[in-house]
């Protein structure tokens, strides 16, 4: 009896983990039939390039959601970190009182932007664990704070003309594949490695699955949670670098409502918002599904207004299918 139910469970689990991939394949086949412009290399790379930023942000979001948290601040953090990268690259760091000027190389600004993202995320995690502020509220506050800081730092103006070398990050290609796609791949591999191979990953699933039991197992919960929000901030920063480079300009209002796209990708990818269940690869599928959908609807000449309705419908459908799947367990 137990042997039998065992195989059915793993069989079911396998189907579930492939759920979003199957949905993606079906969607691609459908669009290939409906329009001849969809199934081309150029269009494929185009979709991936456009999706790369959301993949970076949503990957960080996945880590947070796996702990049963949420990070609404990623869009603003993305904007602030992009602005920091652009500002430091262009103007360096000036200390008028000490008559000091620090110039930055490209490597330097990338590091600075990612560290800034990490610090902002760390702050989110600190507030959540130290003062027991619900993640929704803590990161909602950070959404506003980081946006305000972006406005202060940029004085509300775009920071443009960042040079050809910097532009390579967002617009260049390597081995025929856009650089942003390579970067997103690195971010995803890192997150997949963390979740599947390391202690931190185990603790993330344990905390999301049952925080009390995790605590009773001697896990230092604040440490893990802070780490996770810091990682989400850093991944949003990577997204910010790509956006800034691609536009050759840091826009003060970049990344507005990106948190919603990221959450949508996470949810469509099968990660449970109550934590403990889901994978980074699912989120990648979710992000690509959203990208393909955006692209396909444009190719099909669907009105932008309808595009939003369809996108919302797909999110609902994904979650409902997930719920029905769980009920049978």
């Amino acid at each position, binding site marked *: 009896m137990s042997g039998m139910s065992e195989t059915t469970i793993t069989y079911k689990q396998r189907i579930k983990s492939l759920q979003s991939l199957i949905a993606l394949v079906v969607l691609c086949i459908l669009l290939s039939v409906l329009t001849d412009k969809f199934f081309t290399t150029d269009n494929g790379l185009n979709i991936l390039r456009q999706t790369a930023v959301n993949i970076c942000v949503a990957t960080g979001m996945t880590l947070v959601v796996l702990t049963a948290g949420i990070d609404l601040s990623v869009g603003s953090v993305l904007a602030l970190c992009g602005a920091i990268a652009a500002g430091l690259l262009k103007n360096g760091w000036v200390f008028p009182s000490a008559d000091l000027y620090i110039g930055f190389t490209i490597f330097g600004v990338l590091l600075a932007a990612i560290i800034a993202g990490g610090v902002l995320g760390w702050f989110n995690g600190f507030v959540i664990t130290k003062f027991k502020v619900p993640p929704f509220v803590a990161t909602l506050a950070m959404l506003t704070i980081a946006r305000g800081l972006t406005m202060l730092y940029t004085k509300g103006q775009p920071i443009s003309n960042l040079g050809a070398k910097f532009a390579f990050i967002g617009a260049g290609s390597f081995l025929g594949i856009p650089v942003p796609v390579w970067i997103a791949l690195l971010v995803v591999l890192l997150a997949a490695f963390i979740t599947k191979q390391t*202690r931190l990953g185990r603790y993330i*699933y*344990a905390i999301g699955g049952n925080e009390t*039991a995790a605590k*009773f197992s*001697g896990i230092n919960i604040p440490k893990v949670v802070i780490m996770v929000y810091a990682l989400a901030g850093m991944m949003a920063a990577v997204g910010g670098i790509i956006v800034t480079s691609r536009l050759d300009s840091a826009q003060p209002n970049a990344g507005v409502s990106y948190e919603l796209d990221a959450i949508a990708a996470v949810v469509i990818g099968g990660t449970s918002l109550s934590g*403990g269940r889901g994978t980074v690869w699912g989120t990648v599928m979710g992000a690509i599904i959203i990208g393909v959908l955006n692209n396909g609807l444009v190719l099909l000449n669907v009105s932008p207004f309808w595009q939003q309705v369809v996108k919302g419908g797909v999110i609902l459908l994904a979650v409902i299918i997930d719920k029905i799947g769980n009920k049978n367990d």
Partner: protein
Amino acid sequence: MLVAKNISKKFSGIIALDKVNLELLPGRVNAIIGENGAGKSTLMKIFSGVYTEYEGSLLYKGNVVRFSSTKDAEKAGIVIIHQELNLVPQLTIAENIFLGRELLNPFGLLDKPKMKSETKQLLQRVQLNIPPGTPVGKLKVGQQQLVEIARALHTNAELIIMDEPTSAITDREVEHLFKIIDELKAAGKTIVYISHKLKELFLKADRYIVLRDGSTVAAGDMKEVTQDTLIEMMAGRKIVIERNSAAVDSAEPLLELKNISLKNPSVSSAWLVKDVSFTLHKGEILGLYGLMGAGRTELMETLFGLHPKLSSGTVRIDSLPQRLKSPADAVAAGIMLVPEDRKRQGLCLDLAVRPNTSITVLEKLQANGLMISKAKERSLVKEYIKQLNIKTASQETLSRHLSGGNQQKIVIAKWLAKKPKVLLLDGPTRGIDVGAKAELYKLIKELAATGVGIIVVSSEIPEILALAHRVLVMCEGELTGNLPVAEASESGLLQLAIHKN
């Protein structure tokens, strides 16, 4: 008034009530007494319509009744004042009292003035001089209990069940309560009074009914019994207990507690644990006995670093003082807890057996300081599955699908892997079948033989006697007994565990 005939109730195969027969006499205070798990609460929940599925029948005022809900029972005139408070803290006293039976004015809107004035009268009856518009959350626990009582009075109930009504209130409030009981009695109401405090029963109760292991074992007039005979009736089982006769080899102190106290977070200047001091030796099993609410679980939690802000006192391990501010600290010091509620506190039910077992020792399984070696992990988990005889289809089976006994073994396995110095087991065999129980006993004894110090918390005296070298008894947060198992008897332990002052 109310007659129970052959009432039986099972919970997933475990018998809670076994053909209970009893009669509640009208206009009297009927005391129902018994040890933890004797079936008192289950029976009360059947009387008040909380549990609707049971065998046997209830005769209420001469008619056979079967309540379909608490509301149904209330309509018939039976209300229960629960041990755990059932009030909404954000709502006012008046709103709570009328919750679900709000008074309406001719327009169909809430008739607030009327509810307020009626609440005022009710509060006067329970001598609670607080405006009806006060949110219940602002009240002290004892005052909340009085609100519960006021709510019961408002329904014009004829049979009022009070489940441990004095567990949270002060002596003065107890006096009020007794006055109210006298009033109710004078008005011809019937009262069921459940309490561990025997002294109260001798003051207020007219009749007693003793439950043991889900059956009625005795009933009679309160005037005709003494405290000692009551205790004997509660405990007196015929089962022959095999005591732990093995002596502890070492006299080496392992864990020393000095003046451990824990403040009650909801009642100021009250203590959940008060000035507890004792020593656990290497290889020794201490059995910690006490009734519900005696502070046993809280003491274990304090030792495990779960109450860093409310606790005080010193803990030494191998005569070195320890700073236990979090479970992580406790684990680092070698103190590990198998918690009371294994589903909520012990396991991630949606994770498989493997990650649940290895979660405490992941750093040992890292191949290069970063990656977890799956091969090492699997062989470790395999070893413990074999050692503890855990019955699971595979390491990848979700913990949710295992039986209670096997789930408990996983919780124990995760700590064994961590090599504990002191293992705290809080109610380790709760809800576990007899076979698995015997296996766990064997395991615990073997573990002690390897030098681990063990504290077993249990509500079952036979379990304590079977496992422990020494027995500790707690009552109302204080340590009231510390004796070798050879000197412990069932009635003796119960005496120590029952509040007497």
